[in-house]
């Protein structure tokens, strides 16, 4: 019985200093523990080689460092154990023109040589598959035990080769699948080939999903083996369906190529892969015809190079298939070198079409997701972010790591996000329904943006696994639409506004920008101010009206820009304007403009003043009436009492008649009556003045003569030994004045002087004409006016505090002042209590 065929290989990288830079673990038995990194090549090989062999070996190394590819077969004689026949392949490892290292691949061909110089192609294939396959591989005997396992499988399962070989395969199958596996095993041994997904148990108990292919192998002794390949698909179970297809389509075939005859030997799988029947005898030219020119070139070059250099080759190619089917094949080959010549290339061909397509699709999809301009968010089934694409980061400013595990809503929604939109999204997602919504979100820096978001729940079977959200930033679009809307509505508004503004009576309507310049202005008042609408646009509020007013107005406008509604009044060219400033808020509370309405309220103001005046006069008149009643009751009664008592006394002196006494009392009656008349006249005067009925009628006369007459009249009232002195001091004597009020003024002032001066005191009346003014000065040495009473001197019914035992109504000076004012003159009083008073009247004449 023959042993299981085996090929051992050692790969070394050797530096220029002839030390080992790198080597593989699995290797040729005698060299296994000697080939180590940093070991000197001579130390490794010299003990095994005869001196001549070692010399040849050294020569090959040197040649390789000179850039040649060299092959050699040496007999290795270890100190103990059997001889080994080894094929050496030396290959320079170039870096540009330099060759800093060389590769030495040593293939143990002892068994091939010794046991079966023409080893069966199947055996060779198995051997090569074992070494070239990337996946886990195992050879199972008809009892179901591992005969051989490769490193790939050991790595996958965590067992060493020793632990597996000789043990039943079933042990590594997951418990619930064992029954099924045992049932199928026999079928495989009967020639069925199949690929199945199996759960394989690792040494540490972890279950892996593996695609397991089964191929029957029958050796020359009719002994049956199962070749199993294992591919770990745990990671890619997400693409289960696709990969399942892939797996069922995956076929790994083997080939052997003879460089001399250019003939191939194919395994059945290859016939199947290429879709050929067994009649097809593959040769290199025939093979190349299966490909397009580019692929054919690549293949030819790779094989030629492998034959020439003895280097491993691998490439992808796409054979032209009948019916337009496109296939991707992955070919890897390894040359067998005999006597420095490549005698055969053995290799595998794997149909990777579906993987390729899946990968391409995945790559495309992932590219789409990654590179699309739309923001893509993938969340887990609870709605927390698992993945976001570049666009998302570009749009929101959040990096993928920042957002992982966060709810997109919490992350992106802000104060102005429409609550109903959020509710809608939430409701749909709770019911696991897709939803689309335009929603306002916020970037990391707080900038708001509008996004058109579609969210789709993703199911695997009936299980919700993800939500995928795709959104496009439509802020610009919305803004554009908004702007258009605003524009058109603005235009309408503006037209309306224009009509309104232009017909705005007695006022100006304007819109001010942030620099307090008119953006728009209109109104009837503009023309009244002698301006034109166009002049005002681009100007400050009053630039064209009254520059100084800007300072007055600007603080108010500023407040309006801060969002306040302001009303204030401004006087302008004798007009009063009520100004209302209203902030125009467009978006987010920003005040871009202020609406300014100026309304000429001069008329109203005037009317208002009139009303106030009327009211004041009314009040005054009422007051006057009340005062009149109280004064009349006292001041009228005294002269009336005097008159009555004097008349009674006159009657008592008639029999016998006492003429002297009678005359005295007649004079008293007369004085009393005159006093009454005077008071009455004062009241009438005030009434006339208040009603505005006093009319000035100017006449020319001699002021000196006029004054002398008044002095004479006053003398009838003077007290004992009082001196009335008149003098016309300077200038013209002819004046042009209304005599009536002038007489009233002078008489009143003279009467006062007499009244408030003691007996024997002097009273001066002085007149002068200075320029166009008549100056009248009345001076006395009387009781004077206390300082604190002086401001009220001209008030109606006011009497100084030191006059209580002197008769008087308090009307006199008030009337004097009123007359003076009506005549366009002024009156000034200088007085010291107990020293005297000087009244100066100046009237235009």
């Amino acid at each position, binding site marked *: 019985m023959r042993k299981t065929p085996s090929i051992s290989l050692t790969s070394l990288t050797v530096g220029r200093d002839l030390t080992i830079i790198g080597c593989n673990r699995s290797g040729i038995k005698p060299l296994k523990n000697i080939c180590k990194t940093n070991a000197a090549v001579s130390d490794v090989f010299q003990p095994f080689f005869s001196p001549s062999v070692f010399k040849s070996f050294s020569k090959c190394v040197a040649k390789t460092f000179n850039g040649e590819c060299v092959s050699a077969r040496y007999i290795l004689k270890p100190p103990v154990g059997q001889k080994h026949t080894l094929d050496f392949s030396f290959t320079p490892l170039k870096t540009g023109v330099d060759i800093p290292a060389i590769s030495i691949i040593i293939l143990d061909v002892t068994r091939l040589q010794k046991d079966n110089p023409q080893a069966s192609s199947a055996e060779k294939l198995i051997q090569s598959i074992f070494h070239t396959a990337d996946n886990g591989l195992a050879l199972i005997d008809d009892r179901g035990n591992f005969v051989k396992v490769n490193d790939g499988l050991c790595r996958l399962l965590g067992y060493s080769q020793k632990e597996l070989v000789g043990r039943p395969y079933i042990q590594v199958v997951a418990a619930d699948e064992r029954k099924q596996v045992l049932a199928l095993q026999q079928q495989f041994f009967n020639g069925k080939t199949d690929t199945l997904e199996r759960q394989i148990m690792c040494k540490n108990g972890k279950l892996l999903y593996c695609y397991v292919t089964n191929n029957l192998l029958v050796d020359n002794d009719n002994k049956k083996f199962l070749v199993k390949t294992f591919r770990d698909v745990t990671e890619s179970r997400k693409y289960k369906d696709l990969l399942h297809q892939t797996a069922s389509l995956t076929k790994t075939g083997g080939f052997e190529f003879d460089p001399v005859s250019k003939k191939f030997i194919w395994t059945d799988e290859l016939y199947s892969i290429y879709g050929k029947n067994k009649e097809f005898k593959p040769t290199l030219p025939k093979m190349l015809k299966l490909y397009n020119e580019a692929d054919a070139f690549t293949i030819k070059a790779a094989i030629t190079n492998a034959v020439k250099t003895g280097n491993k080759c691998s490439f992808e190619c796409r054979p032209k298939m009948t019916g337009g089917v496109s296939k991707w094949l992955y070919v890897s080959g390894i040359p067998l070198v005999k006597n420095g010549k490549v005698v055969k290339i053995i290799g595998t061909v794997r149909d990777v079409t579906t993987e390729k397509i899946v990968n391409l699709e995945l790559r495309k999809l992932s590219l789409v997701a990654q590179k699309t301009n739309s923001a893509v968010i993938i969340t887990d089934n609870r709605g927390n972010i698992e993945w976001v694409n570049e666009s998302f980061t570009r749009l929101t400013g959040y990096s993928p790591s920042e957002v992982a595990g966060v709810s997109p809503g919490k992350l992106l929604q802000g104060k102005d996000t429409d609550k109903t939109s959020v509710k809608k999204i939430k409701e749909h997602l709770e019911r696991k329904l897709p939803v689309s919504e335009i929603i306002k979100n916020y970037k990391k820096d707080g900038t708001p943006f509008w996004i058109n978001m579609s969210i789709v729940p993703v199911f695997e079977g009936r299980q919700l696994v993800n939500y995928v959200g795709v959104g496009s930033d439509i802020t610009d679009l919305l803004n554009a639409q908004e702007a258009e809307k605003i524009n058109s509505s603005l235009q309408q508004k503006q037209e309306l506004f224009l009509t309104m503004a232009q017909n705005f009576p007695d006022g100006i309507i304007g819109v001010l920008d942030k620099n307090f310049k008119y953006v728009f202005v209109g109104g009837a008042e503009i023309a009244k101010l002698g301006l034109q609408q166009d002049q005002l646009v681009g100007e400050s509020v009053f630039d064209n009206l009254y520059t100084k007013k800007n300072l007055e107005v600007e603080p108010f406008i500023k407040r309006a820009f801060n969002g306040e509604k302001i009303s204030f009044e401004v006087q302008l060219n004798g007009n009063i304007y009520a100004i209302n400033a209203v902030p125009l808020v467009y978006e987010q509370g920003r005040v871009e403009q202020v609406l300014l309405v100026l309304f000429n309220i001069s008329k109203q103001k005037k009317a208002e003043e009139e009303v106030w005046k009327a009211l004041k006069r009314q009040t005054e008149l009422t007051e006057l009436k009340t005062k009149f009643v109280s004064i009349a009751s*006292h001041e009228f009664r005294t002269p*009336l*009492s*005097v008159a*009555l*008592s004097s008349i*009674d006394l006159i009657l008592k002196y008639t029999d016998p008649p006492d003429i002297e006494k009678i005359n005295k009392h007649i004079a008293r009656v007369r004085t009393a009556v005159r006093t009454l008349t005077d008071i009455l006249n004062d009241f009438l005067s005030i009434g006339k003045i208040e009603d505005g009925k006093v009319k000035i009628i100017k006449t020319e006369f001699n002021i000196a003569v006029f004054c002398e007459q008044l002095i004479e009249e006053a003398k009838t009232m003077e007290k004992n030994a009082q001196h009335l002195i008149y003098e016309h001091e300077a200038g013209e004597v002819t004046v042009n004045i209304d005599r009536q009020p002038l007489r009233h003024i002078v008489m009143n002032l003279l009467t006062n002087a007499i009244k408030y001066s003691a007996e024997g005191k002097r009273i001066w009346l002085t007149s002068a004409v200075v320029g166009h003014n008549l100056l009248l000065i009345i001076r006395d040495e009387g009781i004077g006016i206390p300082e604190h009473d002086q401001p009220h001197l001209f008030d109606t019914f006011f009497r100084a505090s030191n006059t209580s035992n002197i*008769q008087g109504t308090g009307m006199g000076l008030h009337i004097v002042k009123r007359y003076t004012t009506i005549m366009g003159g002024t009156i000034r009083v200088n007085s010291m209590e107990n020293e005297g008073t000087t009244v100066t009247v100046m009237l235009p004449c």
Partner: protein
Amino acid sequence: MKTILLIEDNDIMRENTIELLELSNYKVVSTDNGIKGLQLVTESNPDLIICDINLPGLSGIEVYKRLPWGDDAKKVPFIFLSASSQALENDTGIKPDAYVGKPYAADDLLSAIEGCFSHTIDHN
């Protein structure tokens, strides 16, 4: 001959009243203010007092309230002269023997005086 004290601030009116009273055979002492009037009440021991209400300084009402007689003192009749009876109506504590409103006829004043004296006589 009865003595009458006259307190009246208006000079002419005082003169006229004195003239009238003297013609009716009364002796008259007079003054133009309340303080002097109160002095004269004790100094001249008048049989009757005629007093104006509106006086500068001490008013007629004040004079009445400060009259120096108590229970022992001789009760002197008191006549108010005034343009207005308002002040009297407002003050219930003032009970003059007569009130003569201004302007008054000579006979009104004289009959008021006589009334006072006869009342006093009756009383006595």
